């Protein structure tokens, strides 16, 4: 049973120089209790698609989708108050910058209790007890004292623990972690990831981990979705993705991992992600792809079947025997 189902999600931003498509027909599926990693470079639309799910995009964004449902409930049809009862309770999110994601004017205790007051029936005393319990869960020492601290009095790692405590305070069924370790020290990164996966096992919630770190993906995720320039280009279980990437972009990303380097120089992917004004007509990765031909440049690629990792590519790599790659009508191969 799919917990979060998104079909054909697109997000456009109205900017001073026209419209910019940050997310382009993305599908997302997360089952209850599953850890999905969404990977991609900066600007690949991974955060934006999740912010759209949470309903947190700024007013300049236009969100369209064929389906967007959480636990069978249509997110698009919900009224504002209805959606706010869901967001922060069943569906919650933590962010990249813990230092700026907490309000400097309020104590961390107040900010967590606020969520509890909104979504639970606990009275004041119970909320306080729950906060202490949460702080112990996320490994904050002397919780009673920390509850009355302001964010600027805590370290980045502590603040991220506070954010996690806040996000899991109302026992969410799906937690979205948007690059939760990017702003932290390497030593703290491992602790936070362990904490997140530990909590996920303990509570059985679904977890979406947005990251650009393939190492993190390999260690934590069960399934991986690779995004490029706003599109999902591949979607596979983690072991299969690392073993047999079907999209040339995934293959190039994996080849660029230092652990996999065979030569002295680290391989790189030439070029940059297309911006607002230089989006290719056909495959978005074609200008940087070493396998691209004329078809790739002109015709948007099809989405391959599941055995080929749903790769959005004309010429998927490592096609197993007996699987016929999808072809676009009229594209000469």
């Amino acid at each position, binding site marked *: 049973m799919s917990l979060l189902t998104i079909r054909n999600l697109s997000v456009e931003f109205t900017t001073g120089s026209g419209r910019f498509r940050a997310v382009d027909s993305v599908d997302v599926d997360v089952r209850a209790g599953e850890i999905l990693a969404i990977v991609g470079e900066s600007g690949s639309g991974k955060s934006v698609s999740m912010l759209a799910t949470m309903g947190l995009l700024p007013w300049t964004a236009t969100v369209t989708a064929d389906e967007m449902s959480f636990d069978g409930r249509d997110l698009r049809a919900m009224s*504002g*108050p209805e959606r706010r009862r*869901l967001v*922060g309770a069943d569906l919650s999110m933590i962010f990249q910058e813990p230092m700026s*994601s907490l*309000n400097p*004017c309020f104590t961390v205790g107040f900010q967590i209790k606020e969520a509890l007051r909104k979504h639970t029936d606990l009275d004041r005393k119970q909320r306080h007890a729950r906060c202490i319990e949460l702080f112990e869960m996320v490994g904050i020492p002397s919780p009673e004292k920390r509850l009355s601290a*302001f964010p600027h009095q805590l370290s980045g790692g502590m603040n991220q623990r506070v954010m996690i405590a806040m996000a899991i305070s109302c026992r969410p069924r799906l937690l979205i972690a948007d690059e939760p370790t990017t702003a932290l020290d390497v030593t703290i990164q491992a602790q936070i990831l362990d904490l997140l996966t530990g909590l996920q096992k303990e509570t059985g919630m679904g977890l979406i981990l947005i990251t650009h770190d393939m190492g993190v993906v390999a260690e934590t995720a069960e399934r991986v979705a690779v995004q490029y320039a706003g599109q999902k280009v591949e979607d596979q279980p983690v072991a299969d993705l690392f073993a047999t990437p079907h999209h040339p972009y995934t293959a190039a990303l994996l080849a660029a991992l230092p652990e996999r380097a065979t030569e002295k120089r680290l391989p790189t992917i030439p070029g940059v992600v297309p911006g607002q004004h230089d989006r290719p007509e056909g495959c978005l990765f074609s200008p940087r792809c070493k396998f691209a031909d004329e078809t790739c440049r002109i015709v948007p690629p099809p989405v391959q079947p599941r055995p080929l990792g749903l790769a959005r590519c004309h010429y998927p790599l490592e096609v197993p025997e007996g699987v016929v790659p999808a072809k676009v009508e009229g594209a000469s191969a």
Partner: protein
Amino acid sequence: MIKYLLSRLATFVPTFLGVCIISFGFIRVLPGDPIIVMAGERGMTQERYETLSRQFGFDRPLPVQFWEYFTGVLQGDLGRSFVTNRPVWDEFFSLFPATLELALCAIIFAIALGLPAGIIAAVYRGKFFDRALMSTALVGYSMPIFWWALLLIIVFSGNLGWTPVSGRMGLMYFFDDVTGFMLIDSLLSGQSGAFKSAVQHLILPSIVLGTIPLAVIARQTRSAMLEVLSEDYIRTARAKGLSPGRVNGLHALRNAMIPVITVIGLSVGTLLAGAILTETIFSWPGIGKWMVDSIFRRDYPVVQGGLLMIAVIVMIVNLIVDVLYGLINPKIRKR
């Protein structure tokens, strides 16, 4: 917090000394001689001039005069007015309640309208209300105050007859000053209609005096809110499922208040120094008019004493603003 307060208070000492020097020096730098002014059209003999000069102590060197003034100030003696011969202290406090009452009403008017207007404009940025409000605020800010006052008097006092033209109280009411605040004294007097009259007299001057602070507060609130609304912690607040009212009104406003309190504090400081134009137009017996008259009369003790009192009041307002910063923003509070 107490340490923070003490450190703020410590800055009072050099400021106070500076204000004493400036208030003493300012009026003496101006051309014109108080004794000549006192003599008026008829003039006076050289002998009489010298007697008066000795009497007021003008024959002694300036540092000596300053020392006498300064030691007097430290003992709470601001000297006596050349013109009325009443202590400056008494004159100041007989007029100050009128200024304070008007200033408070004006700033309450400005905050009550400016703050919500700025918030709404920020939340609905770029929409019709935002544009309409910000252009109105610009007009309010750039309009000459005396013209605006006259316009209001013509419409509300002249055409509609809703409000009186000038003064603080209707002529048919008479009662003793208890606090000096008409709103309170009129209630204490127990005369029916007196309070209503006091309120009616306050309406137009408050609006006129509050117009510029209103425009400034609305614009400052809007820009501070716009900045805060794009912060990460606002996204966090929304991610908790909080209502827009709570996100905007608590999480955003609390942070946006810091620059807004600065402009409110500055406005209060200016308003308490007396509003010369407004007080003149509405014949409001306040500090502003008194100071201007005294400057024309070269009434040294009144000018230097009045300036000093105003400066001290502005310093106190600033202290209150500093304390408010500490209350609102825990980062400023030192532990």
